């Protein structure tokens, strides 16, 4: 039996930053909204008194229960994809606020170069600089056009930071000052300055002082308790949807949050979305929620899979390189975030203290801020040091050459527990014709629907930029005075470990319907009352953490949806034929 609900203005899938921002904005604008969250209802009280490393970091308390659904993964088109079976290998958030609750809080605006990477690369280096098969493209929106939305999101989130000396122009300062500087960060800043770089404090959504945002939501002052990344904040001091956009949406009186609501299909007829069909996972009962506008604001995996399961848009075919749903899988994982770890004999740091986004960084080697003429890769990243606050299980780092267990391991792991620092290069995985997502032919979820299949392999671009970053991190670590420096090793091939949550693409935005699924309001070219919002829209990744860009895109989409409803429909951006075809 199917329960049919009354029609609303907008039904949104997902309650993270993407879904949450849209719900808050549309609720405030007087639209009737239903938000479907597959996980359970959570509030700050759920995170009080549970600072437990085993439960959250090692047993993945806040991550998706994979017994119902996971993904499958392979490297190349001729392989059989295997399911990613355990939460050691796959971390995607769930419950109120989704992955936006367990996030670290590091906040970066992506660069003007990121949004126009193809044109700006060709302009500076010529078309030949882009390797064959690399399908990077412009977003159909520029940094200048994104700037007001970044500003808006930072104000909602209470981002605490100082200006990047090499960063793009800002209309306003961050709403809060940067976090305190801890000794490892001071050391990093001194060393990078000595080397001629321009370090600054990582902008943080672990908020530096008690702050009331424009919606009247209060975010508390971060206490550096260390239970941050992979945890919900017990003090309401990490900006997440639970302390910002969800209560704002609720306050509007126009938004109905439904939990345990697992979206199975976008319903549609005659080229228009009509609503969402979902299952109440507590009862197994099917529900239909009709709406004038459907907005997918889930994790990129779920956004892609819902479109593919619903037969919306032409699935990407890598053999013919046609179609677009699932095209340009990209992200920031495994082969990125490599660098160097230094071990200090004469220094001990309070590494058990920290916050997810407490760190130092520099943009000298980000984007196209440095000359790539003689380099064998495109793009770049930040170089970061972070003081997350190490748990006792995590603080087992030993210098290379130490056995992984036994007497020498024990001795070294205890000796270096508070004596090792890591710095890394936050480069990104670009997009390639052979990296994409589609539906798996074999493996199914609880309801018999195919799992999402990821096909992803590394290229020389990935290996070359990783090598470059490791070398730079090593130089900085030397300047920081480490006694032993271990360089990270470059993996040969993608290892199917989906940690960190920076997986994107598949429903990408652009100005040309031939090479993009959504326009720059995140509106589907093929179905104008369907908006697909989140990391799924990235044509390729930026060289910094993605959350601010997702938050900004969500404000952009919310504005578009409101306009769409008020104006009685229509495409919000005009299609443009790009001069290049990838």
């Amino acid at each position: 039996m199917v329960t049919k609900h009354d029609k609303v203005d907008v039904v949104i899938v997902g309650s993270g930053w993407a879904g949450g921002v849209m719900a808050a904005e549309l609720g405030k604008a007087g639209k009737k909204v239903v938000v479907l969250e597959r996980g359970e209802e959570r509030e700050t009280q759920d995170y009080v008194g549970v600072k437990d490393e085993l439960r959250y970091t090692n047993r993945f308390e806040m991550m998706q229960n994979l017994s119902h659904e996971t993904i499958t993964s392979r490297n190349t088109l001729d392989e059989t994809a295997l399911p990613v079976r355990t939460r050691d290998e796959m971390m995607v958030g769930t419950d109120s606020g989704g992955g936006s609750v367990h996030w670290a809080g590091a906040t970066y605006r992506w660069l003007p170069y990121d949004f126009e990477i193809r044109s700006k690369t060709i302009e500076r280096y010529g078309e030949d600089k882009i390797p064959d098969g690399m399908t990077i493209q412009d977003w159909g929106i520029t940094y200048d056009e994104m700037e007001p939305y970044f500003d808006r999101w930072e104000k909602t989130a209470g981002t605490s930071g100082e200006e990047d000396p090499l960063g793009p122009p800002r209309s306003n300062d961050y709403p809060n000052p940067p976090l305190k500087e801890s000794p490892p960060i001071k050391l990093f800043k001194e060393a990078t300055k000595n080397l001629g770089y321009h370090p600054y404090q990582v902008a943080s959504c672990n908020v530096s002082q008690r702050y009331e945002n424009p919606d009247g939501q209060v975010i508390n002052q971060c206490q550096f308790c260390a239970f941050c990344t992979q945890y919900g904040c017990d003090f309401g001091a990490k900006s997440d949807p639970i302390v910002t956009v969800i209560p704002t949406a609720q306050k509007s009186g126009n938004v109905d949050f439904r939990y345990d609501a697992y979206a199975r299909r976008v319903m549609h007829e005659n080229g228009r979305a009509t609503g969402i069909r979902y299952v109440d996972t507590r009862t197994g009962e099917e529900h239909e929620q009709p709406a004038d506008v459907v907005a997918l604001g889930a994790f990129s995996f779920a956004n892609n899979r819902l479109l593919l399961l619903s037969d919306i848009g032409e699935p990407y075919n890598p053999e013919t390189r046609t179609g677009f749903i699932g095209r340009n899988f990209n992200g920031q994982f495994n082969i990125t975030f490599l660098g160097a770890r230094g071990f200090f004999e004469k220094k001990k740091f309070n590494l058990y203290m920290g916050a997810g986004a407490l760190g130092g960084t520099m943009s000298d080697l980000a984007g196209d801020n440095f000359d790539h003429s003689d380099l064998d890769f495109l793009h770049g990243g930040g170089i970061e040091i972070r003081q997350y606050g190490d748990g006792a299980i995590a603080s087992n780092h030993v210098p290379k050459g130490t056995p992984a267990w036994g007497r020498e391991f024990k001795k070294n792991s205890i000796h270096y527990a508070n004596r090792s620092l890591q710095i890394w290069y936050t480069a990104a995985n670009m997009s390639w014709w052979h990296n994409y997502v589609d539906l798996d032919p074999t493996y199914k979820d609880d309801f018999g629907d195919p799992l999402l299949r990821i096909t992803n392999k590394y290229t020389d671009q990935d290996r070359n930029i990783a090598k470059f970053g490791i070398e730079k991190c090593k130089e900085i670590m030397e300047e920081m005075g480490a006694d032993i420096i271990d360089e990270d090793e470059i993996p040969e091939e993608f290892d199917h470990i989906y940690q960190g949550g920076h997986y994107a693409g598949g429903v990408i935005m652009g100005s040309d319907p031939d090479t993009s699924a959504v326009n720059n309001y995140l509106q589907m070219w093929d179905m104008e009352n369907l908006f697909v919002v989140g990391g799924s829209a990235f044509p390729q990744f930026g060289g910094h953490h993605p959350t601010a860009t997702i938050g900004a895109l969500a404000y952009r989409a919310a504005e578009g949806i409101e306009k769409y409803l008020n104006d009685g429909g229509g495409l919000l951006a005009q299609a443009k034929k790009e001069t290049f075809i990838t």
Partner: protein
Amino acid sequence: MTQDEEDKDTLSRRKFIKNSGLVAGGVVGGSLLGGLLTNQFTSGPKTQTKNIEDHEALQHARVFFNRKKDFDTLAAATECILPEDDLGPGAILLGVPYFIDKQLAGSWGTNAKEYMRDPFYQDEQVIDYEHKDTPQDKSGPNTSTKAPTPTPRYQTRLNRGEMFLQGVRQINEVSKEKFDDPFTKLAEEDQIEILQAFENGEVPMTGVSSITFFNFLLQMTLEGAYADPVYGGNKDMMGWKMKEYPGPRMAYLDEIDKDEFILKEPKSLREYQG
């Protein structure tokens, strides 16, 4: 527990009291050392009759491993991975074997939240996959919070409990085959040799690579030593004391920018929750 093991257990307690004095004395002052000594003495002499008085001891009994010899093999293997030394207790004294027993009896051991649907391929691709052993802290953003142990690759129909049961029995089989003695009777160097064979994937197991089993054994030994004591390991927070780790705290707002290392007496989750 055999008499030999009893003796070893008592000996290690004595040694740790002495060593704790050396490490902690003068730095933390009397309270840490006093607490330790009190705990050691109140747990009383251990005898075959197991005159158990303290509440904590009542919470340790096998609930997963039925056969005592399997549990003893597990215990000896964890002690090999994290042995007792001058710095402090090893896995056995920390309660790691009971920690693992409890974990395997619960949702972790039964793979309650993992995708356990057919087909489970056992072809070359899977064998190759299981042999990859990227450390957990080397996989993308925000993962330096992870233990730097290899991530076990899961493509087996066995759940973790079943894998461990087979694994510890196989440790004993290999031990008898190679050294004519059960694993618990072997010298440390022989025990190490056997565990290395598992680590390198050289020991045949049914439905799973010995690498996968070993990586879980390694991961769970470290977890048991350093997780909150509520899970049965890290006895009396002795793991945390070795690492100078303070346990869960409300705030470090006034200390985060301090230059000197600040040593704190550890507090458990129980104390934190009040």
